């Protein structure tokens, strides 16, 4: 037997916006509207019980699972340790410095084509970058390099263990069958002759 209540529960859980009864009925066209409404009512009942950490609420014309307000303080702690994603600009800047250090801000900005002051500041604050000194050219610009924290973030032993650009480029290159030479498959001269055997 199909468990309509379970299906409605799944749908409400997975949908990325509140789901109205009408929408539920459209999605579940093979079911009777009354049955869908009953399933929803039962769920509202189940999730309406005291002390639940997940409640089913009517919001923005539909139904959505939410957490009760009294747990908000605890949920905030999740954001405290939520890993931050790097923005593309931070990654680019970090990458340029990692691979080209020591490097000046003007060089970074020349390569990126955009102002990088803000992102440099952020990366310095996060201790992923440090100022190595001043470059001995007119204007004495500051030069930047990566830190020990940078190596830790990427679990790198040292800067030498950064993969080279070539290694990544090689991944997308088409097969060069000279590469096969290192495999224990026999001398390559035989390859040329394989045609004659046909």
């Amino acid at each position, binding site marked *: 037997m199909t468990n309509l209540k379970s299906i409605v529960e799944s749908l409400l*859980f*997975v949908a990325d*916006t509140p789901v109205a009864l009408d929408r539920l009925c459209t999605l579940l066209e093979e079911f009777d509207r009354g049955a869908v409404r009953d399933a929803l009512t039962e769920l509202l009942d189940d999730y309406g019980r005291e002390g639940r950490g997940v409640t089913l609420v009517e919001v923005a014309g539909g139904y959505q699972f*939410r*957490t009760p307000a009294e747990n*908000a303080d605890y*949920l*905030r702690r*999740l*954001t*405290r340790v939520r*890993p*931050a*994603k*790097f*923005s*593309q*600009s931070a*990654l*680019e800047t*970090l*990458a*340029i410095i990692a691979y080209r250090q020591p490097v000046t*801000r*003007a*060089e970074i*900005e*020349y*390569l990126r*084509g955009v*102002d990088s*002051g*803000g*992102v*440099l*500041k*952020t990366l*310095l604050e*996060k201790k992923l970058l440090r*100022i190595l000194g001043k470059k001995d050219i007119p*204007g004495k*610009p*500051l030069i930047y390099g990566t830190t020990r924290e940078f190596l830790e*973030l*990427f679990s*790198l032993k040292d800067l030498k263990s*950064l*993969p080279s*650009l070539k290694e*990544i480029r090689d991944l997308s290159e088409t097969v060069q*069958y*000279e590469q*096969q030479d290192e495999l224990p*498959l*026999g001398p*390559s001269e*035989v*390859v040329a002759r*394989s045609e004659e055997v*046909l």
Partner: protein
Amino acid sequence: MSGDSLPLYGGGEASSAYTVRLEVFEGPLDLLLHLIRKNEVDIYDIPLSIITREYLEYIRLMKELNLEIAGEFIVMASTLIQIKSKMLLPPTPDEESAEEDEKDPRAELVRRLLEYQTYKDAGVTLAEQEMLGRETFARSFPSPELADMQPEEEPMEVELFELIEAFRAVLDRVSEESFHEVGAESITIAERINEILSLLEGKESLLFDDLFPGELTRDMVIATFLAVLELCKLKMVRIVQANRHGIIWISPAVLDGEDGLSAEELANDEP
């Protein structure tokens, strides 16, 4: 199995003479396994003459169809021929005393085939797992409960691969040689300085993007950029960015501006 039927026509279904469906093989090992299965021969005692012939037929057909033949297929062809010829030779006394396994020139190939079969099966098992987004679903949208919460501190999560890809993206945009020719475009830079200053005249601020009228060329972007940098250095303009990824504004310099980040200010932030 008659020598005339090619191993590469998919299935036995009636297809028109002009639609040849070539079975796709992941590589020579995959093709060999297919041939062994199709001929119902013992993998521990592969009849090399049959298998090699069919293997070469497959390659020939690929060639006739103008399909690109990966190098691995050719290498394996030579390996098969080599093994075949080894089997025709009488064993040398050395080989006779060697272990059973070493005596059969096919042993290494058989090991590879069996091992490949195992991983191929493991891949199938993997595909049979309950897959997120296929059999099972999790909440996929960021919870509204956390929407307004600012992360208090930010442990960072990033993969090495992303770092390299970011670097590659930069290098793809700017050729490596030009990296060393920063000074070469000074005439254009001077022109751009004047143009920017006149654009800014009488205005409180300009969108950074507004500095690029018309067509965007790389030289133009670079020259404009260096011009803005130069103007910053001369403290004639300020660059303001509302937030980390926000729009960049250019405005005529006001003394002691707090938003324009200069290298010196960056330096002061560092303890």
